[in-house]
């Protein structure tokens, strides 16, 4: 019988296959497989008479190279044996690794064994090997079977295709639609959190509300909180679309979010409690009637209006009125000058300068928080990508993050802001 050209000899079993000279197996791989015959599941012989020498072959309708499956789809394997088989004795091997817990059933009408590609806690480690560290949306997966017996509870992938060749199919590690939805969700999140970061006070201190939002300095506490929120959110969405598992949030991730959220909250509390130069500037400006950025805009508009009145040739002003307008313009300009001088030390000097320095320059307690956040954030992302799970940081490492944040809060009391 002519072999499909895509089959290649599988070295481990080529010798056995050649010895027994069995006909080729048919391997059918299909999507959404559920039939009444499967439900009935007729009585099967416990041991296929000639199974020791079987191989995998593609189904006639679905060539493996065109087949694309993902988690929770069904994979059927057609055997060339004439008799029924006990499907529960078969173990599916994907890329040479046994995947247990797939509850195979025998489809007598199509003469095949059907494996439901489900991920359970029991076989999560097996899937991790298969799905972890994805570099694309799909990957080629080679299929083989093993037979579990009482004497061999951990079978080898001995059931392969003709001449030991393993058929393969495209496994969609990240289904396109889910990938699009996840990208959209993460994109929206990033847009909400980071998209307006420069224009609004979402990541900024806002200690002096008189400063225009885009000139407000960035807050280390809020930045750290946003980093961990973004990492955990994106990781959760990534794992959900990959594994279809809503329970991937780890204790450690929650603790990291708690530490960062607590740090941001404590930082705000410290800022509110301590008597800082920014409070003095705020109080001083309030005494001048400048309570918010809106007031600054109003004063600028008042200057503009008065200048327009003075410049207007349509309505000539009396000398006294012109002098009064000039005085009012001067008064408002002086107010703005005081305003500018008061806020100058507190306006943003750029993202890194804001979060790494206080009024006295670079601050060690801030830089260490930044370094640890970057390091642990990187490890976190790598862990999610590589292991398909949020990393299980040791409590020592979490304590380190906590100490780092606590140090930042402690040093925030005396720091000049």
């Amino acid at each position: 019988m002519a072999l499909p050209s895509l089959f290649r000899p599988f070295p481990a079993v080529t010798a056995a296959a050649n010895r027994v000279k069995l006909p080729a197996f048919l391997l059918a791989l299909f999507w959404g497989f559920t039939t009444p015959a499967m439900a009935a599941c007729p009585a099967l012989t416990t041991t296929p008479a000639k199974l020791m020498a079987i191989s995998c072959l593609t189904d006639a309708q679905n060539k493996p190279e065109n087949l694309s499956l993902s988690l929770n789809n069904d994979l059927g394997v057609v055997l060339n044996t004439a008799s029924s088989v006990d499907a529960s004795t078969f173990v599916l091997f994907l890329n040479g690794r046994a995947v247990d817990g797939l509850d195979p059933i025998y489809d007598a009408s199509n003469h095949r064994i059907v494996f439901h590609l489900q991920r359970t806690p029991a076989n999560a480690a097996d899937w991790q090997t298969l799905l972890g560290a994805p570099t694309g949306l799909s990957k080629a997966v080679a299929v083989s079977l093993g037979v579990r017996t009482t004497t061999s509870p951990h079978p080898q992938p001995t059931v392969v295709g003709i001449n030991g060749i393993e058929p393969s199919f495209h496994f969609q590690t990240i289904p396109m639609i889910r990938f699009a939805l996840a990208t959209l969700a993460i994109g929206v999140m990033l847009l909400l959190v980071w998209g307006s970061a420069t224009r609004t006070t979402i990541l900024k201190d806002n200690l002096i509300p008189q400063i225009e939002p885009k000139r407000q300095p960035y807050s280390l506490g809020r930045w750290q909180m946003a980093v961990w929120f973004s990492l955990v959110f994106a990781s959760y969405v990534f794992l959900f679309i990959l594994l279809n598992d809503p329970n991937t949030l780890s204790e450690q991730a929650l603790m990291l979010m708690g530490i960062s959220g607590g740090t941001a909250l404590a930082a705000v509390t410290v800022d509110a409690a301590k008597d800082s130069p920014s409070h003095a500037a705020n109080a001083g400006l309030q005494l001048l009637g400048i309570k918010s950025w809106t007031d600054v805009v109003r004063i600028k508009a008042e200057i503009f209006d008065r200048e327009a009145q003075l410049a207007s040739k349509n309505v000539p002003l009396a000398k006294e009125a012109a002098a009064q307008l000039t005085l009012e313009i001067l008064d408002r300009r002086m107010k703005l000058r005081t305003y500018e001088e008061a806020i100058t030390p507190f306006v943003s000097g750029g993202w890194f300068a804001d979060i790494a320095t206080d009024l006295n320059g670079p601050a060690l307690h801030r830089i260490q928080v930044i370094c640890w956040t970057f390091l642990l954030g990187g490890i976190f992302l790598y862990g999610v990508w590589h292991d398909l799970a949020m990393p299980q940081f040791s409590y020592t490492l979490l304590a380190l993050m906590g100490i780092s944040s606590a140090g930042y809060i402690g040093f925030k009391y005396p720091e000049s802001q």
Partner: protein
Amino acid sequence: MAAIEHVVVLMLENRSFDSMLGKLYPAGPNFNGLTGLEANSYGGQPLPVWTSGTMDADVASTPTPDPGELFTDMTFQLFGGPAGKAPPSMGGFVGNYMAQPAADRPFDPRSVLHYFTPEQVPIISTLAKAFGVCDQWHASAPCQTWPNRFFVHTGTALGYVNNSQFPIPFPAPSIFHQLQTAGRSWRVYFHDVPQSLLLRDIWLSAPLHYRFFDQFLVDANNGVLPNYSFIEPRYFTDTILREIPNDEHPPHNIMFGEQLIANVYNAVRNSPCWKKTLLIITCDEHGGCFDHAPPPNAIPPDSHNQEGFDFDRYGVRVPAVLVSPYIPAGSIIRAAPQGVPHDGPPYPFDHTSILATLSSLFNLAPLTARVRAAPNLLSALSLPLPINDGPKSITVTTPTTTTTTASNKAKLPPNHMQTNLARMAASLPVSAPTQITPEPIPMADVTPPTVAVAAANAIARVKSFLNL
């Protein structure tokens, strides 16, 4: 003659000699201080001078509210009524105080009779003992701040007795211009609104000579102090910098003034210029605080007069401490016989003694007749070599200024001095002029509602004028 090349003057506000240094030494022929028996009558009862045994913010702000300081107030304080030919009785302080318009808190008749012990004002007392104190230094006239400050700059007030009446700019020739013409260097170091900026003959060059106080510390440290440095204290509460006035003007907490004195002394003492520097610490006028020494008659600076006053009488004694390595420790410096009536020559020290000293040091002509008659301070520099180095540095603990404290003070209405400074600043051109017209500028009729508004506008205009 002592080789003095740098004169530094720190002029604070509104404290009398008795209130600050009256108990520096035991009163006697060698020190005209307080015996403790000095008193003013009020309600038929004698009220003696007194001190508080403790020192806190309330004590340091005594007298509160601010006593009267107009010319008519001072006349009453000195004479207990209209001015006469007889020597002042110094018996009207309490009566005038209690006759002031209602303030934000009740007037306590004893407030103006309060004095600080040396322990309560450790900085000025330490310097007075380590170097020299003048127990015979009078304000140049029984008038407000501006007339007396113009005396220290020009040797005259041109007949104006109150702050609010002066022409802007003030046209009398100043010591600054005189020094400049003579090729000598000078600078005014200020904190917020320099009153001396009213002097007409320095307007053209003011941006070159006016610097914030921090520059003084730098210049002293670098050994580049000018020949004449005049330091003006902070007159306004600065809410943004959380700075409380350090001018010692009642009811401002005097500990901030003590801190300023310490800062100035430490800078001068540790400057490469130290051996050639004379530091003078004084107040412009007594501000309604009691002093028992009647002001003697004085030489009128010129022919100007106002309200029947020819400027032929000194004002109340003010604290005056001289610091120099040429001054022996514990010096008590005076230039005229003690006692009343005294009608020189020789005359006692007054603010024009500073001008007389500068004239002597830098070979300048006396600006007015008062300056010509004034004793200079060089006689106090009696050591043959600059060997009295005094304390290496002095420190004082000042109250912590919180934002709330500063805000509360800045919410108050400005006092007379602050209001007039705000008006003066509002009258300044937006930038230093390139030429000066002879016509005076009318003083701007602004009435800032709070210290905060007054300070913000005044400081912004001063910076604009000085291009700072």
